[in-house]
């Protein structure tokens, strides 16, 4: 009697840890994902075909397999079709699905409890509701629901389908709703077996939905990666609740692992943007999702024409391109690569300067430029490229703003003060491609644009780059 199921779960758990560890190192990241997927496959097979006693096909296999096949096909299609830039919202959607699954499990188990303990025969037993089951069921329900609703909202926001929505004293209202959820869940425990039981249960669900909405609605669209990461760890905890409920170790391990790793990841992500988690959650600063209306005051800006820039670059010996959020919005990565190729063909040394938080998710620029097949060796990280600006003829800032804002160094009152930036002002010439003088994510003005060395080429990044390509070709 080999405990095949348990062994399968053990393999699953270990694979999750190993996989996540490997995902933390660039060299092994992709393999790590496969390791985790392998572990998941083993665990699922163990659940379907084994018990602790040996081989035993699970009941209702036909429905389960049908659902798995459908999920696999649809999931693969969705994941394969999604555009690179839309990946964060895709992650959010899938995360919501996990939360929904956890919530559904809790609902079914709750009905199960009601029908067994709550049946007339059991009525005379004094409230035979085992707390060891009640807590994981309700926790899974509440957390799963919040995660589901929150993720859907986050998905909608990143999609642009849902706007920001703020209301006064949101913190207090949120807290009240949270207390209400716990209160109702508590009452529900006491009132179990009475006729109100289902009512309280549904009220709990309703409140959890409301909380999920209130939690994510006020947060700025650009902060969504952080929120998704947080909701991700919520879903992990919801899965762990299932692990407690069924004393199932692979669920417990996987859930807790994601719960803890996800929480840390959230904190680390905030830190990389020089913000605190509290800050993000309360929805302070930078909530405007790229494009507040702060406009330039004082100083004058030098506008330049595409022709001049093209000449300048063609006869430069070294050009560094600084991509930012605007490049992503304009979907200008391909034409950017084209320009790079043209210049390289002319003998110009072209590199990309990658700031860790350029764009709207960590690694955004790497992913974006890799999509257009830019050579990985040309993407140089901040610490390594900063010393090179001094020997650079032209820096081409494409839709970046905050990551080149000298206020991070000079102005202690600035919200981005202390964030390391790309030292573009060391270069001989700076050309900035953006549509207007509007601010970026942090909503603050950028002195760099008023620097004498700096020329502005206004217009959509894609259009401007296309013009540059044409001009360089024409020269």
């Amino acid at each position: 009697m080999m405990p095949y199921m348990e062994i399968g779960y053990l393999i699953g758990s270990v694979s999750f840890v190993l996989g996540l560890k490997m995902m933390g190192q660039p060299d092994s990241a992709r393999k790590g994902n496969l390791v985790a997927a392998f572990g998941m496959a083993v665990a699922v097979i163990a659940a379907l075909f084994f018990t602790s006693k040996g081989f035993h096909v699970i009941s209702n296999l036909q429905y389960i397999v049908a659902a798995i096949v459908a999920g696999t096909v649809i999931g693969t299609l969705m994941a394969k079709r999604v555009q690179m830039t839309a990946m964060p919202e895709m992650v959010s959607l899938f995360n919501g699905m996990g939360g929904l699954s956890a919530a559904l499990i809790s609902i079914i188990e709750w009905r199960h409890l009601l029908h067994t303990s709550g049946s007339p025969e059991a009525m005379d037993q004094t409230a035979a509701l085992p707390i060891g089951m009640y807590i994981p069921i309700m926790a899974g329900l509440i957390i799963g629901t919040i995660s589901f609703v929150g993720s859907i909202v986050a998905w909608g926001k990143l999609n642009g389908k849902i706007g920001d929505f703020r209301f006064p004293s949101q913190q207090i209202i949120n807290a009240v709703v949270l207390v209400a959820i716990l209160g109702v869940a508590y009452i529900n425990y006491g009132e179990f077996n009475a006729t109100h039981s289902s009512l309280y249960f549904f009220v709990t669900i309703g409140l959890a939905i409301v909380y999920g909405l209130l939690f994510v609605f006020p947060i700025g669209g650009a902060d969504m990666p952080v929120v998704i990461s947080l909701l991700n760890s919520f879903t992990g905890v919801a899965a762990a609740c299932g692990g407690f409920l069924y004393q199932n170790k692979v669920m417990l391990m996987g859930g807790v692992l994601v719960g803890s790793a996800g929480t840390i990841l959230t904190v680390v992500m905030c830190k990389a943007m020089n913000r605190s988690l509290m800050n993000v959650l309360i929805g302070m600063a930078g909530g405007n999702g790229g494009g507040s209306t702060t406009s330039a005051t004082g100083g004058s800006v030098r506008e330049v024409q595409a022709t001049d820039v093209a000449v300048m670059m063609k006869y430069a010996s070294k050009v560094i391109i600084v991509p930012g959020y605007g490049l992503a919005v304009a979907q200008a990565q391909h034409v950017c690569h084209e320009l790079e190729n043209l210049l390289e063909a002319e003998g110009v040394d072209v590199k990309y300067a990658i700031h860790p938080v350029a764009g709207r998710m960590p690694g955004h620029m790497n992913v974006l430029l890799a999509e257009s097949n830019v050579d990985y060796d040309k993407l140089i990280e901040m610490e390594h490229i900063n010393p090179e600006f001094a020997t650079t003829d032209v820096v081409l800032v494409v839709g970046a703003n905050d990551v080149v804002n000298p206020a991070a160094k000079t102005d202690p009152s600035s919200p981005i003060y202390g964030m390391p930036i790309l030292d573009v002002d060391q270069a001989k010439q700076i050309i900035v491609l953006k549509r207007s003088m509007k601010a970026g994510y942090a909503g603050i003005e950028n002195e760099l644009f008023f620097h004498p060395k700096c020329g502005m080429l206004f217009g959509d990044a894609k259009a401007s780059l296309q013009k540059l390509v044409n001009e360089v070709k024409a020269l």
Partner: protein
Amino acid sequence: MEYIQAIIDLIAQYEQQNTLNLIYLVVLMIFVGIELISHVPSVLHTPLMSGANAIHGVVLIGAIIVMGNASPDDTLSLVFGTLAVFVGTLNVIGGFVVTDRMLEMFKKKPKGEKVS
């Protein structure tokens, strides 16, 4: 009677042991999660988030267990359970595939220029 009491005690003790064991596992796993993530380069944050997202799809196992326990004439449970399995699978499969696509981007000598 005494004999049965002894057995009940034994089982209760095992139950308690089991719960305690789970607590050990949770505590250790929290440590592991924290340690694994604290030293990760920031370019990998998004793929990591996505990978972790796929891992919590393990909730699918719970959905499968629910289905295994549902009696064939409990239609509501079957419907909800099948839905739970479906969305759980979406989470797992979608999560891993998206992560793989993201990481595919990082494939070319990811450390190449860092050394120099």
